[in-house]
């Protein structure tokens, strides 16, 4: 057990450093490009900047920014809960960075929705009982995104309160934090499983390889894998970029959980295909069968990489996490776009404008992350004096 408050317990601290670097300038440029595309969309309509059409009314923005973005963002809830329940303190170094990325993921998802929906000035109808239609899975998703964003903000609030020395409020907040930690997991689970349920109403328009009543379960389990993978990738990336020690043993544990979750996913996926008699469909020479195999190989990869005596090597951990995250991302793209048969004559591939918005949102997230870790206590203070903590020497 860790004695909190001793040297072993790493308190987060702002890392300081310059805000304007070549890297952040490039990110700023990408955000500017996003603003231009959004301006055109607001003046001339969705068709002016996207390849969306009545056959594919949902594209990159919905599938990447919302479905995939919030799935990766679910890492915040998973790590926050794991901290409280599993090892109490041992996961602490990762909580705040995970919360920050999760929060940004959710804020960007909401921002993207506003760009995507045609009649955004009516968006408040979602919250009004007069309009709200509770059979709509979309309503569930929308309400959960809003609630999850709020909960993530509350979970991150201690860092802000610390920064401004508001310790009294912080202590009071800490006493009720367990409620938010639990609610975050529940709402995140409802939202992520609902992204699967969303497709059930599409009926026969979704290929039998993907259309199943297990969609909520498959989306939920793959989300947990993606969230855990995101934590590992993020820890690896910030350890490299900021020359900080890697929390390897913790990452090994997270990936072990991820591995088991992926196994549950694979068993459910294959059993479902077999029971519904859809297995012959995956050996037909179709695009759907091809993407099914690529995605399944990516789901199997982490299990293969982490098994055996060398499974705890950092490179393997990182590769396994990448495979796990990619697998979940592909599964979502495949279910929403590749397996969506909307009738002959319809085609969709994201336009430059759509890509610019998605890239711009990702750039905005990274930019905000850099600014935040420099100004707020997010990353753990390194154990030993390290040149990286000197302001200005870290190039993020």
């Amino acid at each position: 057990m860790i004695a909190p408050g001793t040297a072993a317990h790493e308190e987060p601290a702002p890392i300081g450093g310059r805000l304007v670097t070549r890297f952040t300038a490039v990110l700023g440029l990408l955000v500017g490009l996003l603003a231009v595309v959004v301006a055109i969309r607001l003046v001339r309509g969705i068709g002016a900047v996207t390849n969306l059409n009545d056959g594919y009314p949902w594209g990159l923005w919905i599938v990447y920014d919302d479905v995939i973005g919030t799935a990766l963002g679910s890492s915040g809830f998973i790590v926050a809960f794991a901290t409280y329940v599993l090892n109490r303190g041992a996961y602490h170094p990762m909580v705040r960075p995970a919360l920050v990325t999760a929060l940004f993921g959710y804020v960007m998802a909401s921002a993207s929705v506003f760009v995507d929906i045609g009649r955004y000035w009516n968006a408040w109808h979602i919250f009004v009982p007069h309009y709200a239609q509770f059979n709509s899975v979309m309503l569930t998703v929308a309400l959960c995104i809003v609630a999850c964003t709020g909960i993530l903000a509350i979970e991150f609030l201690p860092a802000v309160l610390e920064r401004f020395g508001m310790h009294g409020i912080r202590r009071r907040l800490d006493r009720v934090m367990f409620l938010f930690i639990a609610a975050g997991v529940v709402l995140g689970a409802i939202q992520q499983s609902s992204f699967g349920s969303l497709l059930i109403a599409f009926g026969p328009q979704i290929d039998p390889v993907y259309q199943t009543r297990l969609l909520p379960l498959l989306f939920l389990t793959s989300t947990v894998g993606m969230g855990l993978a995101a934590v590992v990738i993020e820890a690896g990336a910030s350890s490299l970029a900021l020359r900080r020690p890697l929390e390897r043993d913790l990452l090994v544990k997270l990936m072990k959980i991820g591995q088991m979750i992926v196994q549950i996913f694979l068993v459910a996926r294959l059993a479902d295909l077999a029971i519904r008699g859809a297995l012959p469909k995956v050996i037909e020479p179709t695009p759907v069968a091809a993407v099914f195999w690529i995605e399944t190989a990516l789901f199997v990869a982490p299990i293969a990489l982490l098994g055996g005596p060398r499974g705890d090597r950092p490179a393997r951990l990182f590769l396994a996490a990448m495979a796990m995250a990619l697998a979940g991302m592909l599964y979502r793209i495949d279910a929403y776009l590749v397996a969506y048969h909307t009738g002959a004559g319809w085609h969709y591939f994201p336009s430059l404008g759509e890509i610019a918005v998605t890239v711009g949102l990702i750039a905005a997230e990274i930019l905000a992350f850099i600014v935040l870790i420099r100004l707020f206590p997010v990353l753990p203070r390194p154990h030993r004096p390290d040149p990286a903590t000197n302001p200005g020497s870290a190039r993020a």
Partner: protein
Amino acid sequence: MLTRRKLIQGLASGAGAIAATSVASTAEARARHTVPDKALGLLYDGTLCIGCRACIPACKAANDMPAEHTELANGDYWDAPLDISGKTLTVIKAYRDGGGTHKDQVKDGFAFTKVSCMHCVDPSCVSVCPVSAMTKDPTTGIVKYSIDACIGCRYCVAACPFGVPRFTYDTPFPKISKCQLCQHRLGEGRYAACAEVCPTGATLFGPVSDLKKEIERRRALTPGTKTTYPRGRIGGNDTYEGAAGAYVAHTYGETEIGGTQVLHLSGVPFELLDKPALPTVAPADISESLQHTIYNKLIAPIGFLGVLAAAAWRHMRPPPEAVAVPEAAGAPGDSTDPPSGTEPPERAREGGQR
């Protein structure tokens, strides 16, 4: 104490529970929707259609829809839409094979079909709309759209298996377009403009129950014999003399996704007319039954929340002023899981530097 192993077991059993409810959901299915008693609809008889396309401009005029620019290989045309769109609520499409000389014949023949909203008994667009912009009128069964409620999310466009609701992508103030059976004209004693203008009664407006009787009557006739067809609306005075059609056995819309209020008769198989082959159960029914099972009285989510909140509360870190005493940090028995509970954080750091 909740260990990692227990957590995973818990998650796995939760997953199993979801799987079980998913499979068992048909048992909990909500009541299947049926056609309202006074439901209104259309009967489109492809054997009567002469392909004059008078219904298209009539529909546009009645619904204030703009003309549409159509690009074809041999030039540009005004208001010759090839498909329904944000600006066009109905079109007539043709099937053609070989020389295309014989009407309603598969080989070397041609046939017409109409595309417009089918006014489903259990519509996907109504089920998926988050803000009640799509509603089904409880009396007439007309599937209506409210532009004032709509947020433009296009879930209805994506979900409709007939590909009916369309969106206007070329304007900053977009909307969904779909046929609403000219419900705004019903109060004026008028009815669907496409049926009103149809010269042969191929598109016929009326109560669904009457339309179904008319279908039975037509099917009972010997193909080729002279008969009198109602024209415009069923029960009106207007009629049209024509020959009885030779129909394929299926009436399109009778069973598709739980039935529709627009019914199609045809002389050629519907798959040749690009009408999608659909199951008899409404996807909306499957989706809503599953949602109602998972979220039945919110028992499962609230129970899940309770379990997690209790677990989080028991393992809450102490408030900062109490951290000086390590033993105060948590519930007893924390060290029952040595690999995770007693791990010195030093190792983690050193491991990373190896």
